């Protein structure tokens, strides 16, 4: 009896204070995480761009509406439509609404650019001609100079009889020449030779090429 009383007493004290936790595995939420990687595919090529015909102006604007033209919309249709013009009735209406709007398309050229050609023959005629060294291409260069000499450059073609003035461009190795057009007719080669003799220096010789 006493034991029953003690049990009742203790039950009153601890009633509701003991928390019961469930350890049933089926109620646990298992979070599954995949180890597979997600692949992101990025193309290496440039995105394709379509450049329109930029010389045709705003007259080429186009709109697309999702409807089908009624079968009587066409004013005239040739048997097989290839390059034949197709005309539409100007007053074409769908559900009472005019659906066609006619605007005169205009092709435009690039505006704002104009060019004028100017005559300048006098300016270019005052410029000298620049003649290059052809020695490396001359097959007979071994015979161009005698003993104690070395050919340095061969300028070709030089109009011998019309030559007014010539200047050697040492930086580029070219010969700059001014001609008298009234007299310049005969083309020859102008050879520059280095002489190794005591009084030697640079020599210029005309040769028939």
């Amino acid at each position: 009896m006493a034991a029953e009383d003690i049990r009742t007493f203790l039950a009153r004290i601890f009633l509701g204070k003991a928390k019961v936790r469930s350890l049933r595995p089926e109620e646990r939420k298992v979070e599954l995480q995949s180890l597979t990687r997600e692949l992101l595919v990025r193309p290496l090529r440039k995105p394709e761009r379509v450049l329109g015909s930029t010389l045709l102006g705003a007259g080429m604007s186009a709109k697309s509406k999702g409807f089908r033209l009624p079968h009587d919309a066409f004013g005239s249709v040739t048997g097989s439509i290839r390059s034949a013009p197709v005309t539409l009735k100007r007053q074409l209406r769908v559900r009472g609404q005019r659906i066609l709007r006619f605007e005169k398309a205009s092709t435009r050229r690039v505006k704002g650019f104009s060019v004028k050609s100017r005559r300048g023959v006098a300016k270019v005629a005052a410029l000298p001609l620049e003649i290059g060294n052809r020695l490396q291409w001359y097959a007979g260069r071994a015979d161009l100079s005698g003993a104690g000499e070395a050919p340095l450059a061969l300028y070709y073609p030089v109009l011998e009889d019309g030559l007014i003035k010539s200047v050697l461009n040492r930086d580029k190795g070219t010969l700059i020449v001014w001609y008298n057009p009234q007299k310049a007719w005969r083309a020859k080669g102008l050879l520059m030779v280095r002489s190794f003799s005591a009084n030697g220096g640079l020599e210029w010789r005309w040769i028939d090429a």
Partner: protein
Amino acid sequence: MSSQYGGKNLGYVLVDGSDGVFRGAVLITDFRGIPADFRYTDPIRPSRLEKILYGGALDVYLKEELILENIVGAVEVQPVLWICRDADLLESLSRLGKGKAVLLAPTSRPPMDAVGDTEKQNDPGSYLVQADPMSAPMRIALPMNRSKEEEAKAVAAVLVEAASTMDLLEPFSRMSKALAVLGEEQSGG
């Protein structure tokens, strides 16, 4: 002046669009390189906005239509051969020039056996031509509608005749200098 050379002329065409400035020039010379006519255009400077708006079409329009058409149409002395060094201009030049047109470029190949020799290249309409005895062969390219071997021979004959009295590529450098001088004059004025 050019009676000894049968009044024959070469027409050199240069259209430049570098540094965003477009300009062009035509130099007609006789077979000695002496100028017979020279036409040039004022520089065209498209704005940044115009370049964005018109894109790649602007370059083609300015070079091949506006400038080339204008200067080729302006010359008073018709050449027997039009010469350019820009492949993009060749077809338009052939159409506008109403005559033979050729692209001319230097090579570093060894000389061919004889003056006047031609050698077909892999590129269609492209040939090597030995124009004179003292230079490397030159590469010529013909327009698509005139790329047959007979046309190449005819063009080579003209080049060989002219190369006996002038440097065939020299007029291009003279034109560049002339345009540079004119540009300086215009910017200075």
